């Protein structure tokens, strides 16, 4: 009973499961940062396990760490990751979505942890990618900011994008598919003790 799932266009997949059940690992495997021991990742009919590059240009991964440089301002941090060819209005829109526009010229070392998280999330909008891989995106966010994240996800899906995220706090999205990794984790399911294959696919 291996792990096997498809993700259609415009859909949302929520990874659930207790601590240590492999949510982050699965997301890292999907992003190509971790290599799976077994199984394969099919992206639009092509095997992305062998050539992660063809797949990686379609994904946006936001992990636990925000990749923010404290001595740069909010805008400089965003510009760096989205490339300098993007014009300012586009970046402003991305910041505005997460209500970061007033802090545009603030050095990032003055941001609170929730604000840093919002800055990391605004990268999602600064350069468009098809699939978002979010590892506990709502950590540190207040209720209003989670609403902003939900809006961003809804908008992303309305333009054909998809999202996979792991979370412990409720993030409301429309018609999500849920995958509970508890059922697949040898740590929590003794019947699986000899199982170590993971398989993901995309249609």
């Amino acid at each position: 009973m291996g792990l096997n799932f498809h993700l259609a266009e415009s859909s949302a997949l929520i990874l659930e499961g207790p601590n240590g059940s492999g949510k982050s690992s699965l997301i890292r495997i999907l992003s190509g940062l971790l290599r799976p021991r077994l199984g394969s990742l099919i992206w639009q009919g092509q095997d992305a396990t062998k050539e992660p590059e063809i797949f990686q240009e379609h994904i946006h991964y936001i992990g636990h760490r925000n990749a923010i440089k404290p001595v740069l301002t909010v805008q400089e941090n965003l510009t760096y990751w989205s490339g300098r060819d993007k014009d300012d209005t586009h970046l402003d829109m991305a910041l505005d979505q997460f209500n970061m526009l007033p802090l545009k010229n603030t050095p990032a070392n003055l941001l609170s942890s929730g604000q840093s998280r919002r800055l990391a999330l605004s990268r999602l909008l600064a350069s468009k990618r098809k699939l978002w891989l979010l590892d506990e995106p709502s950590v540190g966010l207040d209720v209003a900011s989670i609403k902003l994240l939900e809006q961003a996800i809804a908008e992303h899906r309305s333009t054909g994008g998809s999202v996979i995220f792991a979370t412990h706090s409720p993030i409301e999205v429309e018609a999500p598919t849920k995958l509970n990794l508890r059922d697949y984790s040898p740590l929590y399911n003794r019947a699986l003790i000899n199982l170590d294959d993971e398989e993901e696919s995309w249609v």
Partner: protein
Amino acid sequence: MSAFLNIVSKDLRLALRQRSDLTMAVLFFILTAMLFPFGLGPEPNLLARIAPGIIWVTALLSVLLSLERIFLADYEDGSLEQLVLSRASLEIAILAKVLAHWLTTGLPLILAAPLIALLFNMDTEAMTILLFAMLLGTPSLSLIGAIAATLTLGARRGGVLIPLLVLPLYIPTLIFGVGAIDAAMNSLEAGAVIANARPHLLLLGAILLVSLLITPLAGAAALKQALE
């Protein structure tokens, strides 16, 4: 190419905002080199003779001090993950980071070297060769050091491991760097200075080319490993 420039300009900007990083290596270089005349006594001939070795060894140690910062901050704050996933090729990104490191470490050392050379009573011709040798040698120091910096990411107390990995690999650069200046100082005719130093400089160039080739490949492999 735009990704390359993007990384270089970001790292330079970071270095300029955190000036302690920028000045530490070059201050260490000047202060350490200045200790030798005090320790060995003010004997102009002796100082002039040992100057090439002292300048190169202190330069190596100064570069060593700064190697950890090439990748460690990026590793800790998650920037490295984003770099691996970004569209830019990882090999190019590593070269960009090494260039930024050289501009903020190697170049200041070269600029400070004439001061030290003066302090050691080195003549002008030897000083010119010293600058050429450092111009060819210090980029190799950054390149070779970057491999060690990537390999020790994620290791506990990786900063202590870097010197152990790197110092043996710095020996060829040291030998030919010092050799070039010695050859210049020992030449009897004025016109023979360049000719005498030439083979050493060429070998320094060869080391630079080899490390230019190896560093991106080895570094990319090590970075991917470090992030798993």
